């Protein structure tokens, strides 16, 4: 296996009763690159994410995450919260899952839970207001502020997350995932429901996350303009299996991909074909 790949998925399968949502899927995601996972509705993309992030236990196959220092972690052996805590994999959800009754700033503070828990001496140092805790808290607020600035929500820091416009919520969810300081960021349709201007802003944000923060990104997206513009590598799925992979250009011209999209959704197929021309 190449050293520069952060995630390698091997022969991954996921069955729900009779339904085979993911069938013997293998692919790799390179370090500090954006890997897109595309495919028609119901292809099994979200299921792959749920396996990688520990929400589902795969029926078969392995997923290995290799950190910068060479430390390798088998993701299928960790369960739910440990994947974020130890393997440093963060994710967003297809249907936004913010904490709506908490402010934007609080959302970003919750994301730093594990670091802050350590700093607060498992709460005891924090309870007596130890100076070390105070500085750690200040640093956490600074990190949150930095991300609020990056996503252009600094002036809404103290507003409830549930009160923000849809596009802002999407970006806040990405910022929240980044506040866990992940090595691999998994985004499930981050451009869904955004207008053209917002999508362009999102592309810029994702590129800067890759280039300035050195995070690797795994991206599920239906918006082909975003996929074609920013991804370094594209994996195409249909009915749970990989049907093609390669650079955005290669994938776009692949007849199997066009056929899969034509069979599923004409508009999307046209979008795939037109996005480059």
């Amino acid at each position, binding site marked *: 296996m190449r050293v520069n790949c952060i995630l390698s998925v091997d022969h991954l399968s996921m069955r729900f009763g009779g339904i085979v949502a993911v069938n013997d899927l293998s692919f790799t995601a390179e370090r500090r690159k954006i890997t897109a996972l595309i495919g028609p509705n119901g292809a099994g993309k979200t299921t792959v994410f749920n396996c990688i*992030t*520990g*929400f589902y236990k795969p029926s078969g196959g392995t997923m290995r995450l290799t950190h910068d220092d060479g430390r390798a972690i088998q993701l299928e052996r960790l369960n*739910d*919260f*440990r*994947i*974020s*805590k130890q393997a440093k994999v*963060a*994710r967003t*959800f297809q249907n936004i*899952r*913010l*904490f*709506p*009754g*908490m*402010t934007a*700033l*609080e959302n970003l*503070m*919750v*994301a*730093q*839970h*594990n670091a*802050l*828990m350590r700093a*607060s001496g498992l*709460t005891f140092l*924090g*309870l007596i207001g130890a100076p070390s805790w105070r500085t750690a808290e200040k640093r956490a*607020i600074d990190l949150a*502020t930095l991300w609020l600035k990056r996503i252009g929500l*600094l002036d809404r*820091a*103290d*507003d*409830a997350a*549930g*009160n923000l416009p849809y596009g802002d919520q999407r970006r806040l969810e990405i910022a*929240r*995932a980044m506040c*866990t300081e992940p090595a691999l960021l998994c985004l499930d349709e981050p451009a869904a429901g955004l207008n053209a201007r917002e999508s362009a802003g999102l592309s810029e944000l994702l590129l800067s996350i890759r280039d300035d923060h050195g995070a690797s990104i795994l991206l599920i997206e239906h918006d082909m303009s975003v996929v074609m513009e920013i991804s370094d590598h594209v994996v195409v799925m249909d009915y749970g299996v990989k049907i093609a992979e390669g650079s955005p250009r290669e994938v776009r011209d692949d007849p199997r991909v066009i056929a899969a999209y034509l069979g599923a959704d004409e508009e999307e197929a046209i979008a795939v074909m037109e996005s480059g021309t």
Partner: protein
Amino acid sequence: MTGERVTAPTLEPASASRGSIAAFIFKKALISALVALVLFSLMIGIRTEAGPTGQLIYWTRFPELAGMVAAVFAGSIAVELLRLWWGPVGTVMVVPPKVQSALALARRAIAPLLLIFTFLVPVIFYQQRYILDLGILVLTYVMLGWGLNVVVGLAGLLDLGYVAFYAVGAYSYALLATNFGLSFWICLPLAGILAALWGVMLGFPVLRLRGDYLAIVTLAFGEIIRLVIINWQSLTGGPNGVSGIPRPTLFGIPLTPADDGLAAKLGIEFSPTHRIVFLFYLILALALLTNWVTIRLRRLPIGRAWEALREDEVACRALGINITTTKLTAFATGAMFGGFAGAFFATRQGFISPESFTFQESALVLAIVVLGGMGSQLGVALAALAMIGGFELFRGLDQYRMLVFGVAMVLLMIWRPRGLIGHRAPTVYLEHSQAISSDLVKEGHG
């Protein structure tokens, strides 16, 4: 109602819809009256009694029944009219800014004023033992409410068996003090720790459960603890309870008329009120400790994780938060405060028995938390005052006390469905702290 914005577009059909509104209200009132007729025809309409030789005597009370049904009819119309005047639920009343700022000021002033007043209660009502006793009772429930608030209000875990921890605390102190002669000040932390341990023990098996299931299991746990206490005669004395529980001392100085008592040491005349006043300040201190710790915890990562858990458990897992330990700490913290309150209860009464720890207590404390507005410290304090104090206030009404109390609760829930204080205060802010409306805040589901 938002004057212009809502009524202006409906200016034309206003007269037409007025007729239909009247018809709707009339229909609703008629249905309510019918339901009342069916319900009350047996409950009020016919009165039965066992005669002197055991035979059945009954007589009818139709005028009373008619009065009741008429009252329901009129009441239903009144409620609907009130609703109409108030506007649909969720609309914001347009209040002049001046009144608004005055209200905000009053709201901010209410907590400090209440605290100062509470501190002065023993001074003002020194001669009225009844008021002092009532004050102690209210403060005990304030403390229990604040303790349960951690579990229900912050972490969103519905706990119907909170009284179990109260019982564990009370029996811990009672048994440790009577069997080993340990003093109150040593037993108090022990009672808290033991209750917290029970909280963790309860927590482990129920963590996987959510919503209704969690509520039922916690309810059962509360009953199990009570049944164990009743049946473990050799340890707990069973239904007879534990008596002769030592009274608290002021750091070793007893509050008795004896030569080494506090009164003798200070050279003042002994009065039994001294002990009442001491108990009052003791429970006030314990309650304020609970409050202080809770407010601190909310601003620490653990407290934020509790609230995040209430908002969205799946998102918490994706952020690397250990759901199990987070829920357990919420249970343990709430249980610990319940244990403290239980130890206080035991030392105040001097005698405890399983009868004091029935489900009714759990329900009462939960009602205080819900009525106060889940998660709000001030709301819980106000609700405890209203529930316990208000109940005493209606004592003069004798048999109608429960009725008036029930009506008051129903009205309050219509007027304030999310509790007295229905908004959430953020735990951290950059520029200014804005209250978050209750529509956004989740109630939790597990």
